[in-house]
């Protein structure tokens, strides 16, 4: 079988000034994932690598650069699934960790459960050796501006600033 990797960096009302960063970011991420496949690695490791790359990139709404809730906090969620045996791992309401996808991966491989949230996800992550980061280290200027704009205009569902008249964003 020829290895293939396909990724996305989010759908929505992406303003023109964010286009280049997103295109650059998806190219870096897809190459990171493909490198794993080219070396004979598993599809599971490849999708984790690609998502990790985008979680570290401010241009995407995941990990560092995640948008903020009404309290100005980053609260992330992630899932990962293996098609061979339909096993899956998922986490939600994750704070203070830079890579929720890796915690979800651990839920898949090292837990009898499939989905862990909030305080339980934090306890699970710490038990598996993940370390926390200061919450402000995950907050980007774009995320702060997006929340400020939401609080001023009240348009729920916008993950980007500078565009109007289209809701429904990733």
């Amino acid at each position, binding site marked *: 079988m020829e*290895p293939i990797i396909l990724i996305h960096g989010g759908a*929505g009302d992406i303003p023109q000034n964010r286009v280049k960063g997103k295109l650059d970011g998806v190219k870096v991420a897809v190459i990171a994932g493909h490198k794993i496949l080219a070396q004979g690695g598993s599809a599971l490791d490849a999708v984790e690598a*690609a998502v990790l790359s985008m979680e570290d990139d401010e241009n995407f709404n995941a990990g560092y650069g995640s948008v903020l809730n009404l309290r100005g906090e980053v609260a992330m969620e992630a899932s990962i699934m293996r098609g061979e045996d339909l096993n899956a791992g998922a986490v939600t309401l994750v704070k203070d960790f830079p890579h929720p996808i890796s915690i979800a991966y651990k839920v898949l491989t090292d837990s009898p459960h499939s989905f862990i949230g909030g305080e339980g996800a934090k306890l699970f992550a710490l038990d598996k050796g993940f370390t926390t980061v200061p919450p402000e280290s995950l907050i980007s200027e774009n995320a702060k501006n997006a929340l400020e704009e939401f609080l001023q205009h009240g348009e*729920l569902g916008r993950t980007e600033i500078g565009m109007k008249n289209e809701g429904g964003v990733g």
Partner: protein
Amino acid sequence: TVGAVAIDKYGHIAVATSTGGMSGKAVGRIGDTPLIGSGTYADDNIGGVSTTGHGESILKYCLAHSIIKLMENGTDANTATKEAVTGMTNRLKNTAGAITLSKNGDVGIYFSSKRMSWAYIKSNKIFYGIEHN
């Protein structure tokens, strides 16, 4: 939201999706991304899907699994992706996007939103985009 679908040399498929959600969301709000069948689905016998867009709509439509079921019934990856995303948008009046890989390596990409960034590598060539068409 970000996501990835891959098939390795053994024909095994995996999917990963990660998100910060939506700006101004309620404390404690959960979207589609961590829900298997909505934000993510993988089955070696059919294919894999990762979705992005309006979370409340995607989870009500079980968008990822909707695409998989269309493919299970013989629809190709690209058509299944377009039909399910369009169906969700028509029914729930919100936008979404999805990426799909079939067990045979066929690629599906579609979004009803204004833009969606995507990229894939197949036959050692990189393809990428963000606009319609």
